[in-house]
């Protein structure tokens, strides 16, 4: 079956870890993830500048490794990302900001990508809050 997983919370929220474990279990169960969509505070998980305390689970790093290892389509909402200072090279240049912090494997795009993916998937599962 095909899943879309939307993450609304930052990496330090328990729900982001829950989304990651759900996504890992979905792939392990033989299912497909057609898209991961990071929205609202979820965009912070894509920032390369997140420094997680050493005694805590580095969920943003686990997300990056998971997306890379499985070559997943990981979309970060561009409007949510810009207002939170999560920028790729193109946007940093466009708005004349000093640095970019959104490297590969992440892709900046619009909310339409969530809608489009939800139409093509069997299930949309959202994770947010605590």
């Amino acid at each position, binding site marked *: 079956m095909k899943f879309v997983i939307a993450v609304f919370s930052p990496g330090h929220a328990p729900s982001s870890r829950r989304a990651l474990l759900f996504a890992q279990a979905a792939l392990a169960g033989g299912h497909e993830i057609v898209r991961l969509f990071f929205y609202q505070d979820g965009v912070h998980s894509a920032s390369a500048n997140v420094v997680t305390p050493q005694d805590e689970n580095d969920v943003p790093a686990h997300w990056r490794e998971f997306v890379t290892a499985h070559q997943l389509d990981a979309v970060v909402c561009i409007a949510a990302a810009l207002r939170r200072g999560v920028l790729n090279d193109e946007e940093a240049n466009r708005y004349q900001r000093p640095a970019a912090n959104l490297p590969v494997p992440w892709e900046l795009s619009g909310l339409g990508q969530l809608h489009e993916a939800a139409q093509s998937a069997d*299930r949309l599962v959202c994770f947010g*809050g605590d």
Partner: protein
Amino acid sequence: MSTLHVISRSPFGDNRLASCLRLLGPHDGLLLCGDAVYALNPGSVTVAGLNTLGPRLYALAEDLEARAISDTGATAVDYPAFVELSLNYDKVNSWL
């Protein structure tokens, strides 16, 4: 059309659980995770209402264990079971 409702916030901090129970259809399921599993704590005012759901009530096993909540009327599920549960219902509605 059946829906799996997912709640992750404590029932003692807001009205999500109460609203969800009011809207829950006869074929819908409810999965509690995170602090929402405190609703299953024996002796809580929320237990009686939840137990009327019978087999349609689920809780994430790791969150029950992390809070030392046992002997509940909910079916404990791990992540592979969560994935399958989401497929047993027509859609998943997370109370964000």
